[in-house]
């Protein structure tokens, strides 16, 4: 395992992210002290070492994911019967079995770690973790162990478990996968056996063979080929029938000529066998079926991995809600399932609404980008309606539940998303477009050739038409695209980009502009306070920091984390309200304080101070925010963040490829201009609220530009959905990741350049493949028409052309 490639002096040994200066956290792993970037990584590493599983660091091939510091889970709700009903089964042996989804698995060693750690817990009888689907099946005895402890143990070693509630969709996929494999297996075995017999028949054709023996071998081929045709090839016939049922020539797909060829060749060969005349084509038929099924299987795998990464919308709902028994009581965390219409729930800032509802108390801004794609937060006050799955951004709301589960607006969207999942990539439909002309051409030609031979040498007519059908079977054409796309998707995955929507490769090849978010995308999103400059003698540096920490206590913004490490708890603030992209406000003691952008904070200053206020920042290269009260300014904070290393190579690639680059940031400070200048990005916009970002993208698209958006935060989610191609950083919020077309798992921006290279190559290779397939058919057709193609030649020609197409596509794997 290339551990040496992962180790750099300033990077965290556990997750690979850079270590902030002056931070000295180490863990003793296998005898050596290794540096950690945060208390989270340190805690996880310690748990791994304490469990005696240090070998994890030897086995792994990828860095681990950084544990989410702000996630405080209340695992005990998962012990409740109503919650377990969804994903836990009671077995006959008295044990319970749960299906969990595990976040944070980056390589096979994670599976090893999880399985070993969990299996070692008392009461756990079986653990299986699947690295491709990220599902964990765990069996335990409920008398000795409970699920909440198992889940918290997962979290301790750095993985986030959640119930797998997409069971139906998962089972459907599993069934499809297994059935396809079975069909593939039968076709493969059949193909080999029939091929074996066919060689004997070919030899017989060349050297002479007794009629009895020939008959026997033909019947043998018939017997073996029959299940291949009627079981393995069944999906083609069903698809062809559906396509013909719609009866318009325009909508024919490749399954129609394929079905003609397979059935035609099969029945003609049966006729040959029974009447002991002519040629048999069982070997070709079996080979077609096998190759075509391989193409379909690859397509299916890509489609399935799309679904996996996308997850289902219903998993965007929280599992628990804060129910209020009476208006003044404390909120109790209860499972979402136990909510009833009419309950009162409390939804804090940064939380997602668990149900559709009506506001009873409070006023806040809600982001409904999830549903409308509109980034502009809507103001909600008493009596306004809120929607399940949307985000409460600003301050706490008390809501009465009006609709739950299947009745929410969210589940209607879910159905739309499932439908969208079935859409085919555009490149594939290119082959389907050709299909219609193809069918027409083949039929016309067969008629022409058939009639010609009928007059010239009637006995030959039937067999020649048959050989035309066999030779022109669009085997290579059907394989051309799926194999290339599958190879390209896995090559992209190896570069660290997980492609979750089908159109990505094609769109990436034609982008004209790449737009970046700043905090968290171009930078690491780890802001630290570099300078603190109090403006009054009343508070010293530590107190200013404490004031800011009190205001930022519950916030999720990267700026907040810069203060969290500091003296939290010294002061406490009440009535905290967040203003998106502007700042935060709260009451500390008797004063109202604001922390944020200069304009926002100075709005509460007395007018005399406001007009005299010197708004120039002390030092250019930092992001400055202001802390002020109703008396005036209190302190300046200078924050600095570090830039990701992969950005410069990516930008030079873009420049070389004539792709414009742009920076759109919600940060209103001069740090945006400084960063843009530093990196050489010409177009940039600071202080862009989510609505502004989306407007900019739409504006660019109206000018005909194809935009690739790279982002990470919640306020990027609508833009990620709106751009032509969107990439979410691996460290992004779940919402951003589900809205994006691809996820950059290793957060390495350079991978984007490499994947674009792959996309360009893919386009070329698909064109090559389609061209080759058409040329092959064009060449072989006249030969078949002249009667010069015996069955063995047809078989060899078809398999050779399919092989060429596949090998060509595999070049993408390099």
């Amino acid at each position, binding site marked *: 395992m290339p551990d040496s490639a992962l180790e750099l002096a300033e990077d965290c040994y556990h997750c690979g992210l850079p270590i902030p200066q002056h931070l000295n956290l180490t863990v003793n792993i296998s005898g050596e002290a290794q540096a950690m970037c945060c208390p989270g990584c340190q805690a996880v590493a310690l748990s791994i070492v304490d469990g005696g599983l240090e070998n994890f660091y030897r*086995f792994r091939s990828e860095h681990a994911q950084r544990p989410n510091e702000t996630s405080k889970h209340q695992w005990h709700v998962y012990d409740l019967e109503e919650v377990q009903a969804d994903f836990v089964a009671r077995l006959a042996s008295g044990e319970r079995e749960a299906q969990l989804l595990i976040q944070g698995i980056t390589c096979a060693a994670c599976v090893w770690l999880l399985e070993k750690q969990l299996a070692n817990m008392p009461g756990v009888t079986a653990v299986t973790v*699947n690295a491709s689907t990220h599902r964990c099946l765990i069996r335990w005895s409920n008398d000795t162990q409970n699920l909440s402890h198992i889940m918290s143990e997962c979290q301790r070693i750095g993985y986030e478990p959640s119930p797998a509630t997409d069971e139906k969709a998962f089972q459907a996929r599993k069934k499809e996968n297994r059935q396809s494999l*079975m069909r593939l297996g039968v076709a493969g075995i059949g193909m080999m056996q029939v091929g074996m017999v066919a060689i004997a028949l070919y030899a017989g054709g060349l050297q002479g063979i007794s009629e009895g023996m020939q008959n026997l071998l033909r019947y043998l081929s018939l017997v073996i080929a029959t299940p291949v045709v009627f079981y393995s090839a069944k999906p083609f016939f069903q698809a062809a029938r559906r396509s013909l049922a719609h009866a318009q020539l325009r909508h024919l797909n490749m399954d129609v000529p394929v079905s003609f060829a397979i059935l035609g060749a099969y029945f003609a060969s049966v006729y040959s066998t029974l009447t002991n005349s002519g040629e048999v084509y069982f070997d070709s038929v079996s080979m077609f079926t096998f190759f075509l099924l391989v193409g379909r299987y690859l397509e299916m795998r890509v489609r399935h991995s799309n679904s996996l990464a996308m997850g289902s919308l219903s998993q965007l709902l929280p599992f628990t809600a804060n129910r209020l028994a009476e208006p003044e009581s404390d909120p109790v965390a209860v499972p979402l399932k136990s909510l009833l219409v009419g309950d009162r729930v409390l939804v804090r800032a940064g939380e997602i609404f668990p149900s559709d509802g009506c506001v009873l108390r409070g006023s806040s801004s809600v982001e409904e980008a999830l549903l409308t794609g509109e980034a502009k937060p809507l103001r909600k006050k008493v009596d306004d309606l809120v929607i399940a799955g949307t985000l409460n951004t600003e301050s706490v709301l008390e809501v009465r539940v009006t609709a739950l589960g299947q009745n929410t607006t969210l589940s209607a969207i879910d159905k739309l998303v499932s439908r969208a999942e079935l859409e085919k990539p555009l490149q594939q439909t290119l082959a389907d477009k050709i299909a219609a002309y193809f069918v027409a051409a083949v039929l016309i030609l067969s008629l022409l050739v058939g009639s010609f031979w009928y007059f010239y040498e009637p006995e030959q007519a039937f067999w020649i038409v048959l050989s035309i059908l066999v030779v022109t079977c669009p085997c290579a054409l059907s394989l051309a695209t799926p194999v290339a796309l599958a190879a390209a998707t896995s090559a992209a995955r190896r570069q660290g980009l997980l492609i979750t929507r089908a159109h990505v490769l094609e769109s990436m090849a034609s982008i004209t502009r790449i737009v970046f978010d700043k905090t968290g995308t171009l930078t690491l999103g780890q802001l630290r306070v570099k300078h603190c400059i109090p403006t009054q003698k009343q508070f010293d540096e530590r107190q200013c920091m404490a004031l800011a920490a009190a205001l930022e206590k519950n916030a999720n913004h990267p700026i907040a984390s810069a203060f969290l490490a500091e003296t939290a708890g010294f002061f406490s603030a009440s009535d905290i309200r967040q203003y998106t992209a502007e700042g935060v406000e709260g009451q500390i003691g008797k004063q109202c304080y604001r922390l944020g952008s200069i304009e926002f904070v100075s709005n509460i200053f007395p007018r005399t101070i406001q007009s005299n206020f010197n708004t120039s920042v002390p030092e250019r290269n930092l992001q400055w925010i202001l802390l002020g009260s109703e008396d005036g300014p209190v302190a300046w904070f200078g924050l600095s963040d570090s830039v990701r290393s992969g950005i410069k190579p990516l930008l030079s690639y873009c420049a070389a490829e004539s792709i414009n680059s742009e920076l759109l940031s919600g940060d209103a400070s001069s740090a945006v201009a400084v960063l843009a200048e530093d990196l050489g990005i010409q177009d940039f916009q600071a202080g862009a609220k989510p609505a502004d970002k989306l407007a900019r993208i739409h504006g660019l698209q109206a000018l005909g530009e194809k935009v690739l958006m790279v982002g990470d935060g919640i306020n990027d989610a609508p833009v990620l959905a709106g751009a032509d191609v969107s990439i979410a950083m691996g460290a992004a919020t779940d919402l951003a990741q589900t809205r994006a077309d691809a996820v950059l798992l290793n957060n390495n921006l350079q991978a984007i350049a490499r994947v674009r290279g792959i996309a360009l190559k893919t386009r070329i290779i698909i064109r090559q493949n389609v061209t080759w397939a058409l040329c092959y058919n064009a060449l072989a057709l006249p030969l078949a028409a002249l009667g010069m193609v015996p069955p063995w030649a047809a078989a060899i020609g078809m398999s050779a052309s399919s092989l060429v197409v596949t090998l060509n596509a595999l070049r993408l794997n390099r």
Partner: protein
Amino acid sequence: MDSLYLLIPVVLVFLVLAIRFLSWAIKSGQYDDLDTEGQRILFDDDATPKPIPKPQVENDKT
């Protein structure tokens, strides 16, 4: 060549067995995760993990 009259039925029997075997392998989930299993043989299972302490009763229900 007459031996073929015996061997061919034998082949057919083998084919049926092969397909049943394949069916069993697929149904028991052996093809579900192709990625992890390939790497599993590289892991050294000699390390014995230390036991985790018994769960303590959690009193954080509010």
